């Protein structure tokens, strides 16, 4: 099956891709890019840009106003003067005229808004916010818990509760997750595996998208530089396509193993210790499954991108033809976020056995929940069947497309190639 011509093509692909500066660049860049994305997200979350916020907080009773004043004065955002709060007690009937008085200041931005805590809030906890931007989430985040505490204190102050009872009343419910598996013990599970599932989805997505794009361009270049005719005089189109895809897949595989090195070290050694809530629980088998699945994903998407590249004559046309391939990988990637929230949702379970979707969905699900071996085997059989279906089709389109010039082919024309 693998002959000297395929080996020669594989070697050339490896020399061009694996030994290239872009490979080193990409291998280092993707983890850095991911770290950058997480870092930026954290940075943006920390930076709320609400320095200088001025709020007027109005209640209907002196005692509630005093409680708010006393409670909020202890908060950091008041101490560091990020927020300035003016307190007042005004009955509801005068609220409208008060808002009218403040209108000019609100519209000019000198006053961020007026928070009105009516007496009825002690029954229904409904608070009103009058502002130019009344859905300002940072204001809500800063005030809602604090005002809730004040309302709880006020509500229970007449019930003669002890401090301990009051503390209990203030507490929120906290879930601890224990994984039920084939193992004897029940283990409390942190968020490590969910984070790993996210990482797996991201790595498959990035790797496939980047390398499929590279293959697309490389096929286009071979077609446009006419080198394909020389190649096809020595090797068959099938040998050429196989060599090319195997070469690209080996490059992707090596890159993926490099990216997974920290995870491999984590699983195989005790050199790295993660915080308890981020402990990762995966086995060698899990990594082998992931890499095997990735290998099939590479073959499938390399095959598709080589086919698309062979059909068109310039990058613009090829990009539009490549769009359906991107959709095929983008949808399961987006679906994987739903799976991380609920790995048992019916959509996730169905997608685990849908061709193309299973390539991302199954590794993500398997990282979060224990699945029986037959389900894993079934998903891989679906991938192999997809690959076996794609390759003959790709081979036919590739053979005709590579030597074709002129306008971009219509769908009808491509179907005719397949029938020929």
């Amino acid at each position, binding site marked *: 099956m693998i002959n*000297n*011509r395929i080996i*020669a*093509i594989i*070697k*050339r692909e490896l*020399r*061009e891709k694996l030994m290239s500066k872009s490979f080193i660049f990409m291998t280092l860049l993707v983890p850095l890019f991911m770290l950058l994305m997480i870092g930026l997200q954290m940075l943006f979350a920390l930076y709320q840009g609400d320095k200088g916020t001025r709020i007027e907080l109005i209640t209907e009773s002196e005692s509630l106003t005093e409680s708010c004043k006393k409670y909020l004065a202890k908060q950091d955002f008041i101490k560091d003067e990020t927020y300035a709060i003016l307190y007042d007690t005004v009955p509801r009937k005068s609220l409208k005229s008060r808002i009218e008085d403040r209108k000019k200041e609100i519209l000019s931005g000198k006053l961020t808004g007026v928070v009105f805590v009516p007496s009825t809030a002690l029954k229904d906890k409904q608070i009103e916010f009058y502002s130019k931007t009344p859905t300002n989430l940072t204001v809500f985040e800063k005030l809602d818990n604090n005002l809730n505490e004040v309302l709880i204190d006020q509500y229970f102050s007449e019930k003669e509760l002890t401090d301990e009872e009051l503390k209990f009343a203030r507490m929120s419910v906290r879930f601890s997750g224990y994984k039920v598996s084939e193992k004897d013990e029940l283990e409390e599970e942190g968020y490590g595996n969910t984070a790993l599932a996210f990482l797996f989805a991201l790595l498959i997505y990035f790797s496939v998208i980047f390398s499929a794009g590279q293959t697309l361009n490389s096929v286009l*270049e*071979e077609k446009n*530089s*006419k*080198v*394909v*005719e*020389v*190649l*096809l*005089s*020595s*090797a*068959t189109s099938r040998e050429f396509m196989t060599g090319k895809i195997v070469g690209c897949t080996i490059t992707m595989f090596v890159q993926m193993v490099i990216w997974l090195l920290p995870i491999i070290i984590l699983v195989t050694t005790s050199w790295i210790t993660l915080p308890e809530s981020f402990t990762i629980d995966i086995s060698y088998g899990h990594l082998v499954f992931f890499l095997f699945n990735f290998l099939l994903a590479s073959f499938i998407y390399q095959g598709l991108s080589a086919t698309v590249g062979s059909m068109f004559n310039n990058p613009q046309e090829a990009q539009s033809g490549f769009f359906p391939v991107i959709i095929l990988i983008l949808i399961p990637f987006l679906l994987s976020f739903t799976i991380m929230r609920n790995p048992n949702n019916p959509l996730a379970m169905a997608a685990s056995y849908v061709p193309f979707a299973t390539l991302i969905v199954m590794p993500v699900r398997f990282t979060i929940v224990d699945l029986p071996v037959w389900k894993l085997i079934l998903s891989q059989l679906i991938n192999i069947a997809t690959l076996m279906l794609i390759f003959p089709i790709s081979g036919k389109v590739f053979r005709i497309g590579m*030597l074709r010039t002129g306008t971009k082919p219509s769908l009808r024309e491509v179907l005719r190639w397949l029938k020929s």
Partner: protein
Amino acid sequence: MVGSFDIHSSKNGIMMVPHTHALEIRNLSKSFGHIKAVRNASFDVPEGSIFGLIGRNGAGKTTIMRMMMNIYLPDSGEILLRGKQVDQEFRNSVGYLPEERGLYKKMKVLETLMFFAELKGKKGKAVSNKAKDYLERFDLMDRMNSKVEELSKGNQQKIQFITTILHDPEFIVLDEPFAGMDPININILREIILEKKREGKMIIFSTHLMDFAERMCDHIAMINHGKIILNGSLSSIKTEYSQKNVTLTYEGDISFLESHPIIEKVSDFGNSTGIRLKDREQTQEFLRLLLDNQVKIKRFDAEDISLQEIFIELAGKGPEEELSFDQ
């Protein structure tokens, strides 16, 4: 001559007759949509010959060559290599120079040569040394480690030609090999082609330049509008076509010949003029006619005709029935 035989049965038993045709093209047809690029083309390429596939641009030469190389699949017909359908064995033993040259631009020159040789199953020190010899011959030794894209177009063509012959193929198939080359490099190329012929290799090349074909080929097939209109050995073709022909170089006015009863056709080729007589026995009468009309004769070649004249004669008529000449 490679040891291959045709088997013939007769009253006296089975006879093994040496196979004289290396390649046999049988009833080859190929269409692209509504365009019939090649129509029922048949010709034989004899062993040890330089074979020219000649015709105008777009006549179907490249399509035939691509079918020979199995790059295009024919709609009908077959290509036989010494009596057997061409297969990977033929591909391994052939060096192909396509009309539209193509190399990997980012690859280095020597790497490129080694890659294409490896595709044909040849690698190692010996191939590397041979590659360097060819580079030396084409005056490209100092560019061995340059990227292909850094070379001029002419030099890239030379590299492409070396990739065609580096693996020492038995068959060399060249599609318009001289296109875009300067006279010095055409000469080197021609020397190598003749050298390969002397080594017993078979060379098939296509060209629309008749003088190259005439100077180099032993056998030709002429294609027009996808149809083979003439094929056979160059000498027998020329003998047949030259019988009523005179090639003339002169000074004076020969316009009187246009309507003369013994003249069939006058073709002006600039430096010389081809005259076709109605009867081959009228050569002496024709010479007299020129002298009587004070035409100063510088060259008078009776029974001589150029390939270009034959080509214009045949191709100018449009699609014709096929003419075949035995060797």
